[in-house]
């Protein structure tokens, strides 16, 4: 039998500790490729059933089959963390993966965004997701498959619409407008109060009912679960379950470049320094590493996408070379991809990596645009806000119960695909039980309304 990669693990861990990495314990589990694909598609090893996952699953299987991509590992942060590794990985793959996982585990333990999310969602997301899935199975038994599926259609289509800043647990809005701030008690006021006058009838402060929502609400899942008047409680629970999982996904999504770069940096460094690994294993592993972090496919000169592994890896190497490991650790703690790229993707580094902006011309070639580091950074980041979803929020609830959603086309610079939006509104109207309206703009930047009423 081949020497098992696990035998290297204790020494890799010692090495990592010497470099100051710290992590919660990680449970490794080897699983078949098909299960790896499922984890990648569902985002969690056990998750609620929905047909859209099935479609993505087959699509991914096809992609895998055609050799487009391969999954080595998936890590779930938590305490303990869990790492799933493909049972088809070779020895060198797994040594690399183990070192890579240590990097991820260090990142998710120390990064504030991860810490905050784990405080809110819990450090046991896998168990929570499994219990959501089990609850939904029970709902299916109680209410029928189709009823549950329609709620999931709605909840999962709004999966990206949470408000990370307001947190997972939120109080409902105050029912009334806050009272006006007390009048300050200065010399003039106190003298004024002593004056004669029929001011016995001090202005009776009537409480004013606050509009709903009091401000545009980004957290659509929360808002619907809280304020849909005729929703069943099990339907609300499904919305809140999907929402909790989104809160868990957020840091994974918002630190992808940093996180993958950090893990790649550490697998490269640990392997380089691990003298206990046989030379041929090291060479195989390092070859695998360079496949992962290469910017451009082997047979091509130019890629029209940025490989986040490469971008993150390169930036971390530079940062640690220039500022040392402690500066890097502070960045790990405090940044997410937005601040990371804005602070550390300098013009020189971008030029060295050969990053460029381009524009696909209608039915024509791709044109490389002018160099501008600010625009380049924003171009990389533009699909990362809000899970890359267009910005839509609740504008108002009309007196007849109509839910009015508004698309912030001023930020997105483009309107929504109205056919698609209509379908989403149909999902939503089913749980809202009343008409749903969406405002966006058309190709000529004129405001258009898409609306739907729930089917009887």
């Amino acid at each position, binding site marked *: 039998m081949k020497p098992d990669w*696990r035998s290297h*693990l204790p020494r890799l861990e010692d090495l990592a*500790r010497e470099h100051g990495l*710290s992590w*919660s*314990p990680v*449970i490794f*589990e080897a*699983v*078949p490729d*098909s299960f790896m694909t499922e984890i990648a*598609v569902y985002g969690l090893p056990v*998750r609620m059933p929905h*047909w*859209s*996952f*099935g*479609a*993505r*699953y*087959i*699509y991914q299987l*096809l992609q895998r089959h055609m050799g487009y991509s391969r999954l080595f590992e998936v890590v779930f942060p938590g305490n303990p963390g869990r790492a799933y590794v493909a049972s088809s990985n070779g020895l060198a793959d797994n040594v690399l993966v183990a070192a890579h996982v240590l990097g991820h585990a260090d990142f998710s333990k120390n990064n504030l965004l991860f810490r905050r999310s784990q405080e809110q969602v819990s450090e046991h997301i896998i168990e929570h997701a499994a219990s959501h899935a089990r609850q939904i199975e029970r709902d299916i038994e109680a209410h029928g498959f189709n009823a549950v599926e329609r709620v999931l*259609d709605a909840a999962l289509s*709004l999966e*990206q619409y949470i408000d990370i800043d307001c947190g997972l647990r939120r109080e409902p809005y105050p029912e009334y407008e806050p009272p006006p701030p007390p009048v300050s008690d200065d010399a003039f006021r106190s003298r004024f109060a002593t004056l004669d006058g029929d001011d016995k009838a001090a202005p009776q402060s009537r409480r004013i009912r606050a509009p709903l929502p009091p401000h545009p609400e980004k957290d659509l899942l929360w808002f619907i679960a809280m304020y849909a008047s005729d929703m069943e409680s099990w339907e609300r629970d499904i919305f809140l379950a999907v929402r909790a999982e989104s809160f868990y996904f957020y840091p994974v*999504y918002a630190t992808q470049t940093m996180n993958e770069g950090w893990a790649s940096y550490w697998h490269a460094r640990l392997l380089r320094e691990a003298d206990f690994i046989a030379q041929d294993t090291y060479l195989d592993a390092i070859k695998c590493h360079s496949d992962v972090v290469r910017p451009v496919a082997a047979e091509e*000169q*130019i*890629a*029209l*996408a*940025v*490989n986040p592994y490469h971008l993150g890896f390169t930036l971390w190497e530079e940062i640690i070379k220039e500022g040392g490991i402690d500066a890097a650790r502070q960045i790990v703690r405090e940044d997410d991809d937005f601040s990371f790229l804005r602070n550390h993707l300098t013009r020189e580094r971008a030029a060295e*990596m*050969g990053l*460029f902006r*381009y524009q*696909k011309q*209608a039915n*024509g*070639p791709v*044109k*490389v645009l002018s*160099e501008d580091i600010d625009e*380049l950074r924003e*171009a*990389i980041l533009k*699909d990362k806000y809000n899970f*890359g*979803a267009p910005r839509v929020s609740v504008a108002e609830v009309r007196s007849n119960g109509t839910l009015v959603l508004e*698309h912030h086309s001023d930020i*997105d610079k*483009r*309107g*929504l*695909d109205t056919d*698609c*939006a209509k379908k989403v509104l149909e999902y939503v109207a089913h749980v809202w039980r009343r008409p749903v309206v969406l405002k966006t703009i058309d*190709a000529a930047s004129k405001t258009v309304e898409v609306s739907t009423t729930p089917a009887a």
Partner: protein
Amino acid sequence: MNPDPPGNEPYGTPYAAAQAVNDWYELFSRGSRDWLRHSEKIREAVRDHLPQIVSGSDIISDDGARTVRVPVRMLEHYRFRLRTDSEPQGVGQGAAKPGDLLGPANAGSKPGGKGAGGTERGSAELLLEFKVNDIIEWMWDELKLPNLQPRVGQSEEADWKREGWDRRGARSRLDRRRSLKESVKRRALESSAPSFIDEDLRFRQLTRRRQPALRAAVFFLLDVSASMTDADRQLAKTFFFWVAAGLRREYRSLDIVFVAHTTDAWEFGESDFFKVAGSGGTVASAGLRKVTEIMQERFDPATCNVYLFYASDGDNAMDDREPARAALESIAKAARYSGYVEITSGLRSTQSETARLFDELGVHGSAVGRCSIKDPNDVIAAVRHFFTLESQSAATGAAPGSEP
């Protein structure tokens, strides 16, 4: 330095437990389960688009084809999405200077730029295979021969029905649930009894029962004259194909007679009928007379429900008007229903020769009806039109020979 549990001890157990690849992963696949649900939803969606499938005319050309292949897009779970940008911007990497024009945009299929939510549209197409029988089943849920009536005479037949249980029988008729029940009962009485003995076994029994049969003969009359283009003929044949397949499924003792006519008329076997082509003028009365002839010879309207479905483009020779009217009248009187399918793939707004004949008969209270097919999407509507109107024409009381 290391705030984690000291040493490697805590890791020891999980690693050991994880040594063996868990076998259950191979047994249950969430992905496949949800994929099955996706396929089911596609099937439901396809049911709603039955007309397009039904019009897939290559179904009928191949006698052995028992399945239809339909290309479908994967179902999309909709999310809010921006309108497609005709000139999208992006970020790339490599040796390129501002102002460079790179070759035509082929989407960078690097694994890097993928959104975690799977926001990009999967554009895979699937080829779904449907059993013709399934499609017929969907179509035929509610379709019936109009005005069908039990006819006495040689219209009773004996049939095998399931009835009762016995201790002996063919192995294929073993009723496992009942056998298990017997075994449970027996073991409740004795202690330490063997789990199954021969006496426990129960077999379903069959017995012959006489049932009133609904005897019916359906005539398909097709105009194959030169004025019917290939496309027209194909439409008519598609219509006939689905009607025949559906009727066969619904009624076991059903005779279908295939007749084609130009200025003359011939009876065909089923497979030949679906291949028949012709040329020459149109004399509807020739076809109608042929139908009458066969009817009198083989299907006595007194003991048999007779139906006529005639497909034509409606052009009939001018001098044939009276003979055609007479022939049709005599058929309409005897038949339980006569339907006319007008193939109008060309533009035509006025009432055609043949349509007028049918309309006149309808006015005089005969059980006739007509429907037109313009393009393949109309085929299913035409089938529905004729085979769901039972109550409607019963309401008019127009069925010939129907005693109050």
